[in-house]
């Protein structure tokens, strides 16, 4: 079902909205949670909480695209759960992918203290906009959805080694982009 029709159902407060949301985007939402949480029960609870969050926020919100909205909610919920369960551990799949990104972004920068996440997000937007679709896809799957490399390889039909090399180059490109934008020394 199209986003606009699903949103209409939410605005009508029809419970069919959740069913249609799950039918249309359930696979993507569950996959996002599964990449971050190992326990299937945690995944299920997290997805249900995300749907509840969508139910509670629409209306008044009318997000577009809907899939990004619900995936972002489930991603945030999964990370909150992860952080509360493993406060002292740094071994989740999310930590692994963020660690990759950290490696190409030096820890000590002149602006580290002041740099707001939103400003960084806009810089990443501009970086993504300048990439080809396949590169954007690789970057998002790895660093937003936290997909394992072998899954990205399977999704794109590329060899794992090729995906890894490409991701390495994308991180380098991001680092140069952030330097060019003055966000890194």
């Amino acid at each position, binding site marked *: 079902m199209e986003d606009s029709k699903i949103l209409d159902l939410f605005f009508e407060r029809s419970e069919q909205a959740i069913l249609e949301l799950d039918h249309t*985007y359930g696979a*993507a939402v569950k996959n996002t949670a599964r990449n971050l949480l190992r326990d299937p029960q945690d995944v299920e609870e997290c997805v249900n909480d995300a749907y509840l969050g969508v139910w509670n926020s629409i209306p008044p919100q009318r*997000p*577009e*695209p809907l*899939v*990004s*909205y619900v*995936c*972002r909610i489930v*991603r*945030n919920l999964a*990370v909150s759960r992860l952080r509360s369960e493993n406060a002292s551990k740094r071994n989740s799949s*999310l*930590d692994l992918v*963020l*660690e990759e*990104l*950290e490696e190409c*972004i*030096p*820890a000590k*920068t002149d602006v*580290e203290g002041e*740099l707001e*996440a*939103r400003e*960084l*997000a806009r810089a*990443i*937007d*501009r970086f*993504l*906009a*300048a*990439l*080809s*679709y*396949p590169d*954007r*896809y690789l970057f*998002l*799957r790895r*660093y*937003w*959805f936290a997909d394992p490399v072998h899954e990205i390889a399977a*999704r*794109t039909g*590329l060899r794992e080694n*090729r995906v890894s*090399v*490409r991701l*390495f*180059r994308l991180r380098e490109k991001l680092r140069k982009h952030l330097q060019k934008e003055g966000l890194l020394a």
Partner: protein
Amino acid sequence: MNRDKLFSALGEIDPRFVAEAVRYAPEEAAAPSERSKHMKSKRILSLALAAALIVALGFTAYGLYLGFEYRRPAAEETFSIHWDDSPDGTITWSDAKLVVTLPELEESREIEFRTGWLPGEMLSLQSEAWKQYFTAETLSDNGNNVGIPAYQGMMQPLQIQTFCTTQFNQGGALLLLYQTPGEIREEHWEEKNLDVLLFRSSIHFDAVPDYGIPARDQVIDNILLLNQEEGWVVKVVGQIGEEQLRKVAENLEFRPTGNTLRYEDFDSHFAFFDAGVG
């Protein structure tokens, strides 16, 4: 840069990018790109065309994620190639053996190179001068007794040439006209940020009994070096053997000339890269 801030920043990116990454559908990619739209559509068309050719004709070689895309053209495909000796300055060629296309950029940074390593037999050609073209054809012994024994019978021991990728925008290509390529390998040389194609090609010469010349196959090694970001490509080809050719390529030094060149700066948008003389 702490991890939480990185996580938050990623969570704040444009939701359209997230939406388009839910499933892999390059043909439907709708998010805006800073690249010019006509170039993007040309590129997508070229990807689709090449992919269709691969499926239709069983070609296996197609580099998508390195900058190169290459294919063996269909028999009916023709190319208009710059050719000084023809009346209108071009020839139409219909029997190319390999077509290599390159990422489209608005501007290429023109470069020049110098050799950091040459085989011992070529040391007379070693120089500190920066160049855009290098040939060792004077060292091949073509029966005129001016060559050196090591390169006896060779047509082209070593040839190096630079190109700007913008020359090949909008459907242009580097073409292998005569030699038939074998297996094509792809590498990325991280240190110099180069995408690399390596392959061996050959051409068969029939025997000429009247002159006592036997049939033979001439084998050439080919290396193409591409810097996607700066928009240049360098061919390193020759008959000195794969190992030595690779060493030459790995030790090339590059520097920008200071010029930037665009598509419209070139008269011809096809160039051939067979290891010829001249």
